[in-house]
């Protein structure tokens, strides 16, 4: 069930962040547009990209789900979706600002060990060029659980 919720949130995140019209039905963009007559789809898209994925959905101002488990995963999924290219590059090197931030998303303080792990398991966490952000997130999460050191030190797993 949790994975279904995560998947749904990832879908909403992806559409609102990258699609032209993201009338997802929740999020401030949806609310603002009809009430303020800012009826262009781009308005909703920008506002939803701003609110629904970050503040509104994760912090509960949109009226969407605000379960704490969802909140943490949604942050990580959004990070993975938004930075997929940079993560793919830095994970191949096992180092970089985006990899360090990704480690933080999982509560991993030892970013060097995290970088080493994702580099060593590169084909597992990014199995193809079409790997999505949510898949990357779930793959990394699974690898952390398989890694004795990280599983015990990454606080948000």
């Amino acid at each position, binding site marked *: 069930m949790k994975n279904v919720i995560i998947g749904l949130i990832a879908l909403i995140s992806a559409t609102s962040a990258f699609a032209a019209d993201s009338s997802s039905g929740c999020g401030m963009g949806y609310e603002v547009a009809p009430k*303020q007559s800012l009826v262009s789809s781009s308005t909703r898209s*920008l506002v939803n990209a701003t609110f629904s994925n970050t503040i509104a959905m994760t912090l509960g*101002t949109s009226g969407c789900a605000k379960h704490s488990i969802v909140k943490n995963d949604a942050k990580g999924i959004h990070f993975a979706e938004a930075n997929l290219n940079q993560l793919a590059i830095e994970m191949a090197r096992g*180092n970089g600002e985006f990899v360090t*931030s990704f480690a*933080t998303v999982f509560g991993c303080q030892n970013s060097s060990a995290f970088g*080493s792990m994702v580099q*060593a398991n*590169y084909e597992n966490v990014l199995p193809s060029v079409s790997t999505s952000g949510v898949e990357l997130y779930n793959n990394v999460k699974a690898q952390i659980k398989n890694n004795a050191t990280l599983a015990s030190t990454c606080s948000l797993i």
Partner: protein
Amino acid sequence: MLKLKLKTMRLLLLLVLLSNFLRPADSSAGALLPIQQDYWLKLLHYYQGTSRADGENFFLAANGKTNPEAELLATIAAFKDPNAQAGWFKYHPQCVFRERYQFLKKAGLLSAVPEIACPEFDEWKKGLNAESITLVFSSSYPNNPSSLFGHTLIRLNQKGKSNDLLDYAVAFSAMPEKDDLGLVFAIKGMSGGYKGLLEITKYYTKVNEYNNGESRDLIEYDLNMTADELDRLINHLWEIYQTTYFDYFFADENCSSVLVDILAVPFKLDEVNAHQRWYYLPSEMVKAFKKIPGRIKSEHFRASLKKQLEKKLAKLNKVELLEVRVLSETTKELPYNYDQIPVLDGIISLLDFTRYRTKDNLSDEQKVMMRKALLRRAALAQDTDHTPVQYEQKNRPDLGHEPRKFSFFTRSEDDHWLLGLEMKQGYHDLMSNDLGYDPFSQFDFLIGSLVYDQKLNRLSYDQLTLVDLVSLHTYKFFDPQFAWAAKVVADRIYDLDCQLCHRFNARAYLGPTIRPTAKMALALMSGVFGEASKHYQKGTRVGIGLEGSFLLQLTDSLKLGLFNELRADASHQLRKDYYNRASGKLSYFPELNTEWRLESSAVSKFRSFKTNQWINQLNYGFYF
């Protein structure tokens, strides 16, 4: 009795507060609460008698946009009404207008009003988890005229963070319609045709957008601030965020001017949002904060993706660089167990930059090579080098000259001596001091000059410039873009024997620019031009122009420019109807905002390369 006295005192306080709006500023009653009056007007975003906020939800009085005292009374009434609703989500007004509420409460005007719980605001504020802010300046988008002035945003630094990417960023941005391009975009942008909204998003989206997507440097200025200042900023952000948009005007109600008006609320510093000119520049905001002693704690430079790539490629030897180019442009297989980390990193960075440059449009072969290079790189040693890469930071906006310029000049035109004055509204030209600006760029607008010809004893205008742009974008194998130039001016005719004669003059050129060193630029551009004058035989000239330029920064205070432009009128006899102008220019910058210029030009006679007129000029100008 005590209750009655308190009520009377509160009423008196309200009257005093209102009196600030009703009485002249120097009246004795008005002087009692001058800060509160200013603060109330700042909270309402008043400017010259009207609020710049345009969302109806921002006002609780019907005439609140133009009447601050009516808005004050309506706000107090709404805070007292337990059933009142406000903002887009219809929360209680106390929960929407957080900073108005705190301000009026501290002023003692709400002491008997029950406080409403605001869980949405509390959760939002807790989620932001901010402990300070950072001003972020984005340099201009290379080769894109719509962003030549740069952009600003703020970053809310989270408590106990280990990096910046996960912080929240706050920006004010216009919401253009997707189909609006070119002239429509410019006209709507200048005339308030777009709505601007406060955008709060993760900082990594901005780093991706500006640093990577548009290859712009991000220059970060960490601010010192008190907990009270931070609280008031967060409160005010929320009340803007919950209620209003601003009509976007490119000149003076833009990304920076609205943001600086928001920042003027917590910082209580009038100089921050003084709005000295009819336009407001992103660099102006940075400079305003930079002038306040102790306000800026530290500065950081986040280099653009292009600069990161350049640094990486510069470390390679010739063989490695060739290998990077060949492997990234062909379908050639990576050799088995290839282990050259610098080359692999070079291929990855080059293809990454190409992907952003082509708007995620890598060829299938490039995608395959990227994947192979990433997999191969992942099989090699972990990158453990955490040494920060050093970049030249001369384009930091706080270092630059002011945008407006006033000049005096003396000039010889053959045996005529002239004296002149010039006023330039903005902004920067090829011969200006590049410190604080993108080097070898020009964006001049609204220039007017007058000359007095002693021999003719005549006063005349010399030139009127609407706009004169040059972007000497360097042509590189990984970024093959042409430089361009465009201008619309009225200036003097020198290729005919005609004294103080004028013409309309416009051009649009395109061509490659190379930069053999960081201090040198060579450009060759060609394109079309149009001229019109009553002094021309046919009244107009339309044809092809060719211009070569050489620019050299000799020292930090000395700059040399050599230019040659040949124009041929194609409307009649292309091979015969031509003229040439060759110019040498030298600029000297004794101080940041002053400069001397020495210019010498030879203009050929129409239909000849024989010099028709020599023009020599000495110019002293100061920026303000």
